């Protein structure tokens, strides 16, 4: 399979190539929706079945860090959109700049996530033999309403780690894609005529952002109580 300039040999025109890439990325994102959808469904069903334990679980999550992360990701989507705009208008230096900014913001997100995870380990909120919620955090009413409280709370944290872990994995892949794009962009590969990879990674990045927009309210915000 050979390439003449930007055109791959099995395509007839650059337009056909770009359309194919775009349709392919959108279909891939649809599969990602179904992929996350499965685990979101598991979460929804379990939240409905165990409201007390899950409410407590939500309240142990750090709202401030989660909110900061939400802002960070939204900003990264903005910088990514700017990179795509720069690609369309052929502003090569700006493409690189905005891609780097996006990568940095993504890195900040992952860093804050690491801090959150570390906190969970510290406070014995990781499912398994060391799981322990201190008695003063569990109201008498809650313990009475749900005799299997600890098991259901562990279920919340299993889903928490599963969902945010899967999301973080996708962010890491996105970061890898950004690094690749930055290297290509620094070599001047992307012009107003050919900037498809920037656009495609942009689509992917926005999708990963949207997943977080759903994760944050579902995990952090529902049944939030003022301390």
């Amino acid at each position: 399979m050979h390439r003449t300039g930007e055109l791959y040999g099995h395509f007839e025109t650059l337009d056909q190539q770009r359309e194919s890439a775009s349709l392919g990325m959108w279909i891939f994102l649809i599969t990602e929706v179904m992929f996350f959808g499965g685990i979101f469904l598991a979460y929804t069903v379990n939240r409905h079945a165990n409201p007390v334990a899950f409410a407590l679980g939500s309240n142990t999550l750090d709202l401030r860090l989660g909110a900061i992360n939400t802002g960070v990701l939204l900003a990264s989507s903005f910088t990514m959109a700017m990179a795509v705009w720069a690609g369309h208008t052929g502003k090569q230096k700006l493409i690189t700049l905005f891609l780097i900014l996006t990568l940095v913001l993504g890195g900040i997100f992952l860093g804050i996530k690491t801090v959150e995870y570390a906190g969970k380990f510290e406070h014995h909120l990781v499912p398994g033999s060391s799981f322990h919620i201190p008695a003063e955090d569990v109201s008498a009413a809650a313990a009475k309403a749900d005799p299997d409280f600890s098991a259901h709370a562990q279920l919340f944290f299993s889903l928490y780690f599963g969902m945010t872990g899967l999301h973080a994995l996708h962010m890491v892949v996105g970061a890898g894609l950004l690094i690749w794009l930055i290297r290509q962009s620094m070599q001047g590969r992307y012009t107003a005529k050919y900037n498809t990879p920037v656009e495609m990674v942009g689509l992917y990045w926005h999708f990963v952002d949207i997943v977080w927009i759903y994760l944050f309210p579902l995990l952090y915000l529902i049944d939030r109580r003022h301390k």
Partner: protein
Amino acid sequence: MSATESRPAEQLPEKHYLNADYGIRSWLLTTDHKRIALLYLVSVTFFFLLGGVFAGLIRLHLLTPKGALLSPEVYNRMFTMHGVAMIFFFLIPSIPAVFGNFFIPLMIGAKDLAFPKINLLSWYLYMIGGALALYSFMSGGLDTGWTFYTPLSSVYSNSAVAPAVLGVFINGFSSILTGLNFLVTVHTMRAPGMTWFRLPMFVWAHYATSIIMILGTPVVATTLALAGMERLFHLGFFNPQLGGDPVLFQHLFWFYSHPAVYIMILPAMGVISEIIPTFSRKPLFGYKVMAGASLAIAIVGFLVWAHHMFVAGQSAYAALAFSFLTMLVAVPSAVKTFNWTATMYRGSISFQTPMVYAFGFLGLFLVGGLTGLFLGTLGTDIHIHDTYFVVAHFHYIMVGGAVMGYMGALHYWWPKMSGRMYSETLARFAAVVLFVGFNLTFFPQFLMGYAGMPRRYHSYPPEFQIYNVLSTAGATILAIGYILPILYLLWSLKFGPVAGRNPWPSTGLEWQTASPPPTENFEVTPVVTWEAYDFENRPDLGLDKPVIPAGPASGHD
């Protein structure tokens, strides 16, 4: 065939996709969709034979009521590995990965699929998944059933569940990427003049299949990942001891696995829709309805999953809804069967091997489909759920339907892929042997299932022995029906007569290029000016003018 006899003996083309490049790297690093198709052909055949060995062991064991061959634990591993190998590593890839890959670009006049490198990646993902499954099998196998129900699979089983689940998980991405590739290809890579309603029905069938692949497979990936994590990290999604719900697993699992059976049958239906017009010399009856029916099967197929769970404790209202939808999903399949029959009506029918397989498909798919209705009926299902009636039903569809379609495709397109013809007498004989062996194997299973013999049991009451003996006898005949084609097809590669460009002849675009095709498929990008299956307006096929007027070409029924 009078059309070809008068032509002089043809030569194989000098340069084609098979001799374009030599060496192992040119195969393992190829991006040519035709070579990738052959890579898949070899690998799926391996898993088919492996699954067949497991089946043989099951049937041997079941010759006697007490089951003298295998212990209960090993028996459980046999039927599990049979199911996993056959479903995930043979049936689901089979027609799409071999014939879809090979022929979709040819049928639409393209040089390759939209994403050739992703196509190769699909094969490698399949191989990695297969290797993991093999590793599981060789570490003693797994005993959970191919359905991996929790908490047996995620907590209690002492078998090699994790590698198998990981293997199936990775294989799922092979499926997803293939579906993605097909969808984009059909949208963006059609040659000039190849409009949507001039596409061969095979392409429509794979389009519908691809929709299922991309929407359903990710869900089973998540589900298996959750079950795997539950097993490895002792989490509690599906384990009642830890507050989880085993029925949630079933819902998530069947949400994919029911549409998966349509992934297995739709491509076979597409093959039949190619074979029957060719060997009736008549256009496919009701082209637009056939295309619509394929899409309807794909969509409605997503709405019926809980008919696998009628006895799992769901509410009567849910069961009612799913039963009703199950009746609905049978309708487009029935419409297709009627349309195939109508295609043959007043056609000029010849019984070459692909047509023999198509006839086999029609009869066996009919039986399988009708018995599916019995299973979908709530009251009857209580009696026959988890019995051999179910086993017979799905084997009639998956073997009598899908595998017949696969064998038909293999024999229909062998001349195009290899440039050679096989021995027609031997092939027809093998097809009949297969048909007889199949019915002897599986029809008694309907009877014993209805009489109460449960599935997945390693021993049974003595009154069922006669059915089991008949079934095992049939299985040996069935095996011959599968071994023979491997032998004569391989033989034909060296010694078979040269087939020529369009031996049948057929109206499809793939028959306009050489056999075997050149790497770039067409010397010049074709411009399509004819309707699909239009035998009347194709003088290039060299057919005698039909005495009875043929039906109108598609789009004008």
